[in-house]
Structures are given as C-alpha cells and as structure tokens.
C-alpha cells in the first residue's frame, strides 16, 4: 500500500512537473483574422526606439485612438534577443514586437508573427510595396513569402558624426581623404581631444561599419561581393582595407584604447562627453542632434548639467584615396510584428497599421529623427523640430536623408553572422599591437571563418 502511495505520489509529481514544463508551450486562442479594433490593450516590446521616443509615438497614437492602451517595454539588444523567443513560446509574449531583417531573424521569429500582407494592402492599397522604402518589404519577408513585420523605417550608415565645436576650437577642417584626416587629428590632439571615438573590443559587430566604409573607398563593390561569395575577403581589396585600419591606428586617427570595449559604451560615451571629434554611428544618431534629446544623451553618458555641442553628419573620408569617394549603406532598420497568439490582435493591427503606414504615424517617426520613415514622401517637419544649431545642422541632416534614401548597398542584410564575426576578429587583430600575424595570414583566417550569404 505504501509502495502504491509512493508510486502514485511520484506519478502525481511527475505529472505536475510535466505540466509546469508543458506550460512553457501553452498557447492561447487568438483570432488571427481579427479586423483592426478601436479599443483594447497592446503590449509592445522592442530594443529600439528609446523609451521617450516610443512614448511620443504612443501619445500621438492615443490622440486618434484614445481607447487603445499601448505599453512599451524597452530592452538592451542582447537581452531582447534572449527574452523574446521564450516569451513568445510561453504564450505570454507581447502583442507587438520589433523584428529586424538582420541575421535571418524573419526565419527565426517569423513563425510567431502574423502575415501582415493583408494589413499592408488594406492600409496602402494593392501597390503598397511601391509606397514604402525600396526593398523594405522583401527584407522583412520569411522564406515562405510571409510579411512577418511591417517596416517601421530604414537606417543608413557609412558616414561619420563630427563634433563641430571641437573642430572649430582646433581650427580643423572636416577631412575628405586619409591625408587630411591625419592632419585634422593632429590639430584635434593638440587641444587634448581624441580624434575618432571607436570601440572595437568585445564581440560586438560595430567594427564592421568601419570595415564596410573603408572597403567602399577601396572598391565600392567589394564588400557585398565578398559577403555573397562572389569575391574573397582575402582578395587584395581585403588586404588593403585591413592595411588602412592598421595605419589609422598608427597615424593617430584611431586611439590606442580602441580595443578596451565595444562601440557602446566606449565610443558613444567618449563622443557624447565631448571628448572626441568624430564617431561612426548610423542614422539613429540623428536624434541626438535635437536641442533636448542631446542633453539626455549626454546625461546618459555621464555628463552632469550638459551643454550640448553641435553634432554634424559628415561624409566618410576617401581613405583609400583612389577617387572612389564614400558610399552609404542601409536597409530597413526594423519592423513591427504582431504575435499570432495575441489576444489583442485587433488593437495591435490598429496600432501597427497607424505607426507604420499612416501619414500621421510616419510623420512622427520622421520627426523623431531616429529612422528614415518607411512611407515614401514623408520628411521631417522642421517646424516641430528644435536642433542645437538649426542653421548648421539642418542642411547637413537633410543632405544625409536625401543620400540615405537612395543608397543601393545593404548594411548587414546580405552578410552572414559568421562573416560579420570574422570581420570583427580580423579588425581586432590588426588593431592589437601585440599580434604579430601578417595581414595576409589574418585575411586568410578571415576568409576561412566566413560564410557566404545566399541572400540576393
């Protein structure tokens, strides 16, 4: 009898344990075909935008849809990636979540998301794809052709941000090529400031931006050819790119603490504290040109009672000096996906539809200066935007926007994680003064560790 009881207890406990474990994959009934609703509660999780920007979007949304409550939760990038899948698997994930095109994310997270093609058609008409940024829809489709995320906006990279105050103080010019960059850095160093704030340490893939920019100066077609297997990272262009990076450290453009940490926090803090003349960041950095947002960015970097400096987007110098100039690269930054198991699909559709496709929602996106709005023809309303120095910054930002929307090169969409990691390691090796390996050997290792992308 005792044995029976014990065995029964064991079975009971095992059943309880399996229920607990099984609960992880419990699902709730949801109406995936629900029409957009005017009321409900929506939770939105994302690694971007910053919470104040999201709150602005939500406040504007609530002016039109006051009965829909949207709650935004912001995560740090890696935390977001580690949290979102277990959350969605548990059936208690957010109703709306960020989904970007990089690293095959549409394939990994797409199975949790609704196909939003019909929403896009309903909002923008049958020719909806022609009304949003070029390639955005393609980048957010999974292998089955489902639109798993509605593009929120795009981004571009491949340029520098300059601290205009430092350049003025140093009597230095914005560099246009390698030689003038070295000269500018000498003047900047003379006033006790760093030239280029760069953080290439750790496992972060930010150094690939620098590599890509230099590669475009060496041979504008090389990066994407190598990324897609049509060229080798160990080709002469690859050797030249790494040689230039090594020389940049030797000639004082890149400072000796470059491998102390990653771009965030190292380079971001150094630039935001006003200690460096340049930093390489993407379009998202435009938001810190604002008269108010610059203060919060500086405070976040550890500056108390900050006085904002004038930050300007400037063309990446033609460091190879072959006359190729510089070329921006960009893609859709992220989109909003709707959890297919959400119990608030109607309200979620209303929110996602408004923010990603409506003129007013996309106008807010444009005004936040965080993204290039997905909806074509939407531009920042400068009468609602206050910059630190409107006369100097606005023309530069407008030029950046104009160049960004016409870029033909993707940023990471066509580059595998293996290739990005290999670029990071190769960059670290040439920047590490204790490494004696030749650049030829480093590029050979880089090629061996890379994996060609099949994305066209």
């Amino acid at each position, binding site marked *: 009898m005792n044995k029976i009881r014990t065995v029964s207890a064991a079975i009971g406990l095992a059943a*309880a344990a399996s229920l607990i474990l099984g609960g992880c994959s419990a699902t709730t009934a949801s109406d995936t075909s629900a029409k957009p609703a005017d009321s409900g509660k929506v939770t939105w999780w994302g690694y971007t935008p910053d919470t104040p920007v999201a709150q602005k979007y939500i406040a504007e949304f609530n002016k039109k849809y006051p009965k829909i409550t949207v709650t935004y939760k912001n995560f740090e990038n890696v935390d977001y*990636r580690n949290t979102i899948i277990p959350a969605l*698997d548990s059936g208690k994930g957010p109703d709306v979540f960020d989904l970007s095109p990089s690293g095959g994310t549409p394939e990994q*997270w797409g199975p949790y998301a609704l196909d939003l093609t019909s929403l896009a058609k309903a909002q923008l008409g049958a020719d909806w794809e022609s009304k949003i940024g070029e390639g955005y829809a393609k980048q957010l489709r999974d292998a089955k052709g489902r639109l798993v995320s509605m593009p929120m906006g795009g981004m571009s990279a491949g340029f520098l941000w300059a601290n205009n105050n430092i350049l003025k103080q140093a009597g230095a010019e914005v560099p246009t090529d390698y030689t003038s960059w070295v000269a500018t850095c000498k003047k900047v160093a003379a006033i006790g400031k760093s030239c280029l704030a760069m953080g290439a340490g750790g496992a972060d893939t930010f150094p690939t931006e620098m590599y890509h920019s230099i590669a475009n100066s060496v041979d504008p077609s090389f990066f994407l050819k190598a990324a897609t297997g049509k060229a080798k990272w160990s080709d002469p262009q690859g050797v030249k790119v790494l040689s230039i990076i090594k020389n940049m450290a030797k000639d004082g453009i890149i400072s000796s603490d470059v*491998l102390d*940490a990653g771009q965030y926090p190292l380079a971001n803090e150094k630039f935001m504290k006003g200690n460096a003349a340049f930093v390489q960041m993407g379009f998202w950095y435009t938001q810190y040109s604002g008269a108010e947002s610059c203060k919060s960015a500086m405070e976040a970097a550890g500056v108390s009672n900050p006085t904002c400096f004038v930050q300007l987007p400037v063309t990446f110098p033609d460091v190879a000096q072959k006359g190729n100039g510089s070329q921006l690269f960009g893609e859709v930054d992220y989109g909003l996906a709707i959890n297919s198991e959400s119990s608030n699909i109607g309200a979620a559709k209303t929110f996602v539809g408004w923010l990603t496709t409506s003129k007013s929602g996309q106008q807010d996106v444009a005004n936040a200066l965080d993204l290039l709005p997905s909806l074509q023809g939407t531009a920042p309303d400068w009468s609602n935007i206050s910059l630190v120095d409107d006369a100097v910054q606005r023309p530069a930002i407008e030029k950046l926007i104009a160049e960004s929307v016409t870029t033909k090169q993707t940023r990471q969409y066509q580059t595998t994680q293996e290739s990005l990691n290999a670029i990071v390691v190769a960059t670290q*090796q040439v920047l*590490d003064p*204790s490494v004696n390996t030749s650049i030829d050997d480093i590029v050979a290792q880089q090629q061996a560790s890379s994996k060609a992308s099949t994305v066209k």
Partner: protein
Amino acid sequence: MTATTSALRGRATPAPTRGSGGRSTSKAARLIPSGIAWILPAFTISVGLIYYCIGYSGYLSFFDWTGGRSPMFPVGIDNYVRAFTDPIFWTALRNTLIYFVVVFAVQVVGGLLFAALMHSRIFFASVYKVIIVIPVVVAPATLAPAHIQVWQTDGTVNQILKTLGLGDVAQAWLGQSTTSLIVVTLVGCFGSVGFGFILYFAGMSQIDPEMIEAARVDGASNLRMLFSIVLPNLRPITISLAILNFITALKLFDNVWLITQGGPAHSSEFLGTLIYAQTAGTSRNVGYASALSVILLIIAISVSIAIQRRGRERAVKLEEPADV
C-alpha cells in the same frame, strides 16, 4: 557514519504491519530507501528540471537549430566535430586550464597564508578578515566596472605606472591578446583568495592542538609543521578547492563577459562565453551551443572524479604504515 548505520538498522526491523501479507510488505519496504517520500518532491523537480535540461541539451546537440519554432535539422555528430576542429574551442580550453592552475595556486597559497596569519596573534584580525572576504561576497557584475576602470588604457594601473616613471610598461591591458587573459585571471584571483581563506581558516581550527604541541616538543620547525601536519590535515579542503576551481573555470562567464567579452579576437575566450555567444548572437546556434555544453559537462564530471580518486589514493597512501 554512525547515524547512517543506525538508520539502516532501524529499517532492518520493520514495524508490524496491519492485515495480511505483512511478510511481502516488509520485503517491499526494504526495497524503498528510507525517507524517499521526503526527498521525492525535490528529487522530482531536480530530475524534471535539471536532468531533463541536461538530457534535452544532449538531444539538441545533434541538430542544427536556431531555437524557437525554426526548423530543426538533424546533423549527427557534426556539432561535436565542429567543436573539436574549431580553434576557438581549443583556445577556450587552454584559457580554462591556465585560469584554473593560476587561480587555484593563488587561492591555496593566499588562503593558507591569510588563514595562518589570522590564527596568529595579530592586531585588528577581525578587520583583516572582513577585507579578505569582501571580494567573495560582492557580485562580479558589481565589481566588473571597477576592474575595467583599473585596467583600461587610461585606467588606474597605467596611471600608477606613469607616476612611477614606468610609462613604457603602460599598455592597453584589456585590448591586447597577450594581456587580456592575464587581467581576467588576476580578477579571478582577486575573488578567490577570500574563499580559500574561509575554508582553510575553518580547517586549521579543526587541527588537534595536541598534534602541534607534540611536533613542537619533538623540535619541528614551523615549515616542517606546515608541510607535515597542517597541509596533510587540510588535504580534503585542498581537493575540494581544486574541484570547485576547475568547475568554476569551466563555467566561467560573468567576469569575462563583463570585462573583455572573450576578446580581443577570442584571446580571453572561455567555454562559458563561447556557449553564450552562440546562443545570444543574432544567428543563434542552439545545436552547437548544446554540443559545447555537453562537452563542458563531460569534462567537469571526468576531472572531478579524477581529482577525487587521486586525492583518495594519496590519502590511503599516507594512512598506510611505513615499512620498517
């Protein structure tokens, strides 16, 4: 030992059972270990959660899978082959071994030294004890920013070196392949000495003072007493520290990730950071990370058994009477 024996004796005399079939019930009762009902809940959760996860990791290690609802492709032992042919894996293992040897040595020497000092009559012993133990109790995440501040290019160490006129020695400690592992290991030493001290201090308190006294009467020097009396008595603690240190080195993650993220160029990579990087990257390699986890587990169990067996063999050897 005595308690266990008496408990077993208790089971050998079964209580009278109600109704018929008492003979078979007592037989059955003998087959069920004492107290099984009490440990069953914890046992079930333990098996259900921990061992289930270990088993599931083993299962996943044979797949190419990016997690969640993405498709799983069976790849046989490819993930294991990939691990053993991946130079980063061997770098991680080499770093683990170096970390273990250095941290263990520093922990034993430092722990013994401080324990011996605290057992001698010194002023403010309690204050010193607190100072030694604090690094053990502070979370690595709390200390990591301080360590970064100390070792970064414009950090405390380089500033001190420059002040002392040793500016040529100053370097990017965190940003060089030749020094990043040294920094991580030193940080490990910083946190480990206190733990060694706690165990050795307690262990020394258990040594019979009469043994020490007898050795003194026999004219043994301090060094002789250390090697012939103190250290042999502390052998179980040293063996435990060796096992714990090796497992810590194998699982090492927090300090490394917070300080160097395994870089630059994987020079300070450990198995823990390698596994994390495979699961936290944009393209998640859950299958490969699982294979690395299984390898880590096998190494941890094998080495723990080996250290224990070696320790027992030596203990038996010491207990054997010397040939006359």
